[in-house]
């Protein structure tokens, strides 16, 4: 059931000065469209990033803006009706990766990606999350902390099976440990070898570590859905598990949005600074290689690297993968716009979960396809399994002859004995 009034309240309820400044400052220059892959590929003005939040701006002006009483008195910003947010669903979910390229180009300094995230809160509270985006996944995530609804026993068995299959000692649910690695649901479903790679590297470092089945899956589908309750529930679960075993480092997997949540939002969710560091796996690898805790063999090859938006542009970890690739002796052929201005894979922000968004994703993939082909290399490394999966799918759809691979696994495969 939809409740548009609740949705609009949800949108404006957590508005602070920064978001209000963003709402007040837009000069309608339209430059954000030119940074958005969905507009660039379709030339459809509806995909202009700032336009995607139009009904929410209307709600802001009517409910909390400085002249809200004037807007209400003279009907300048009418109430948002049910038809409007419903119509906007495909703009706020299907055609926004929250990649932040629009935020990078905005001359007014408006973080449009952040506004879309807030708009998703409103959409969720209005009951307007696309069903195939969340649906059963959300229910399972609420119940078990995992989008795939895995129980503790199933996780434990899965981890030991992976360890046995890859010949790696797995540490599971140990009472204390310095490093607590988390994983992404995509790793669980599609790339289980990445969990073996994490274990192999942590064992190589001689670290005290353990997977915790009570705080294991950091994927947090609720975050990208806009479900604040589910998002907080998953986040607090991971924090509890890390605290319980006295962790010094919470290690985030090859996953962009989960890093954003745990690195920047988790402390706010829990109401206090975290008693441990939150590191994305590439940051740990780069640190370990730099200080000698991780020793790697050369793995000479030519390759390119796809930056995950939430790790590089939005997360400040642009240098880490390049330190790793250099240590491995990889001849890196950078993509055009590599690093901070990189184009999203097309699946970020939960767009990969939306079936009807497939044609849009395919169009976004064409940018990446052109850029990779321009480098002339055969292998694309990345540090986000969501990107990896989206690029894999896009490549299969066009019969691509490129390999998309995990940087984490490349390191694990080339550790010195």
């Amino acid at each position, binding site marked *: 059931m939809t409740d548009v009034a609740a949705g609009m309240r949800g949108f404006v309820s*957590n508005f*602070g*000065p*920064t978001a*209000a*400044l*963003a709402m*007040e*400052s*837009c*000069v*309608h*220059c*339209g*430059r954000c*469209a*030119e*940074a958005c892959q969905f*507009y*660039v590929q379709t*030339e459809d*003005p509806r995909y*202009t990033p*700032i*336009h995607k939040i139009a009904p929410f701006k209307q709600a802001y002006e009517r409910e*909390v803006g*400085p*002249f809200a009483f004037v807007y209400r008195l003279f009907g300048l910003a009418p109430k948002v009706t049910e038809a409007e947010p419903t119509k906007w669903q495909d703009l706020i979910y299907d055609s926004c990766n929250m990649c*932040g390229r629009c*935020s*990078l*180009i905005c*001359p*007014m*300094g*408006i*973080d449009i990606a952040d506004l879309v995230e807030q708009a998703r809160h409103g959409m969720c509270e209005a009951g307007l999350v696309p069903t195939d985006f969340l649906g059963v996944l959300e229910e399972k995530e609420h119940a078990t902390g995992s989008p795939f609804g895995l129980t503790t026993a199933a996780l434990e068995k899965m981890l030991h099976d992976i360890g046995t299959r890859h010949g790696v000692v797995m540490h599971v649910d140990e009472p204390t440990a310095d490093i607590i690695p988390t994983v992404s649901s995509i790793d669980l479903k599609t790339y289980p070898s990445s969990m073996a790679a994490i274990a192999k590297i942590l064992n190589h470092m001689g670290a005290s570590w353990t997977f915790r089945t009570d705080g294991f899956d950091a994927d947090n589908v609720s975050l990208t859905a806009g479900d604040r309750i589910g998002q907080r529930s998953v986040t607090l679960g991971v924090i509890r598990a890390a605290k319980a075993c006295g962790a010094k480092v919470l290690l985030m997997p090859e996953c962009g949005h989960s890093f954003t949540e745990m*690195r*920047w*939002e*988790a*402390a*706010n969710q*829990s*109401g*206090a*600074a*975290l008693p441990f560091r*939150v590191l994305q796996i590439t940051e740990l690898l780069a640190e370990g290689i730099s200080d000698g805790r991780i020793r790697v063999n050369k793995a000479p090859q030519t390759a390119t690297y796809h930056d995950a938006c939430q790790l590089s*542009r*939005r*997360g*400040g*970890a*642009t240098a880490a993968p390049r330190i790793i690739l250099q240590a491995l002796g990889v001849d890196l052929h950078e993509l*055009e*716009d590599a*690093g*901070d*201005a990189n184009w999203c894979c097309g699946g970020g922000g939960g767009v990969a979960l939306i079936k009807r968004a497939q044609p849009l994703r395919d169009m976004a993939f064409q940018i990446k396809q052109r850029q990779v082909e321009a480098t002339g290399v055969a292998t694309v490394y990345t540090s986000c399994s969501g990107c990896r999966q989206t690029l894999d799918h896009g490549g299969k759809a066009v019969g691509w002859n490129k390999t998309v691979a995990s940087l984490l696994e490349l390191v694990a495969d080339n550790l010195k004995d």
Partner: protein
Amino acid sequence: MTLLEFARGPGLQVALLIMIAGCVWRLTAILLLRRRPHLGASRHSRAGRVAGGIAMVFTRSLPRRTFWPRIASSVILSTVFHVGFAIIILCGAPHILLIHQITGISWPGLPKGIIVLVSGVTLASMIALLFRRMLHPVMRLLSTIDDYLSWLTVFLPILTGILLSGETIAGYETLLALHILSVELMMVWLPFGKLMHAGLVFASRAAMGVNFARKGAAT
């Protein structure tokens, strides 16, 4: 009371009052909203975050190189307009005289002919920006009455300023009165529409700069 006397007297007083009260109201309403604390460990110290905020105020004036091919016309036209407008206000002798009368501060101005030329170029850039707004599908979709009204309230002072410099279509006093009244119209509209970006741009860029410095994100 002549039109000029009205423009210089009660007209100016009312316009100033509305502009100041409106700006204070709008800024206060924004700043009084509840702040969310940022408890996540910052990549930069407090000084680093402040530096990030200050840096972004300047760096966002021009886009990254990678964006240029797609937005060159927008950037060039808006830069010409903003620079031209600043030159007219800050380097036109009558404007400097007015500032001197109010503040006691003065500086050398540019010759009248140059100011008229700059005004013409600025006006031309505004007309081009208007056509762009009306014709470009994205800008047409985004534009509201505020965009056109704001455009008009800036266009009129420049137009009347050019007419005043030549004293062509009416006498000096009438043209001066029209020029002052057009400026007063702009002052009255400033707090309520997007002209307010003249001040908000600094706050908005700085806020983003601080936030992005916290994350070490790309600026």
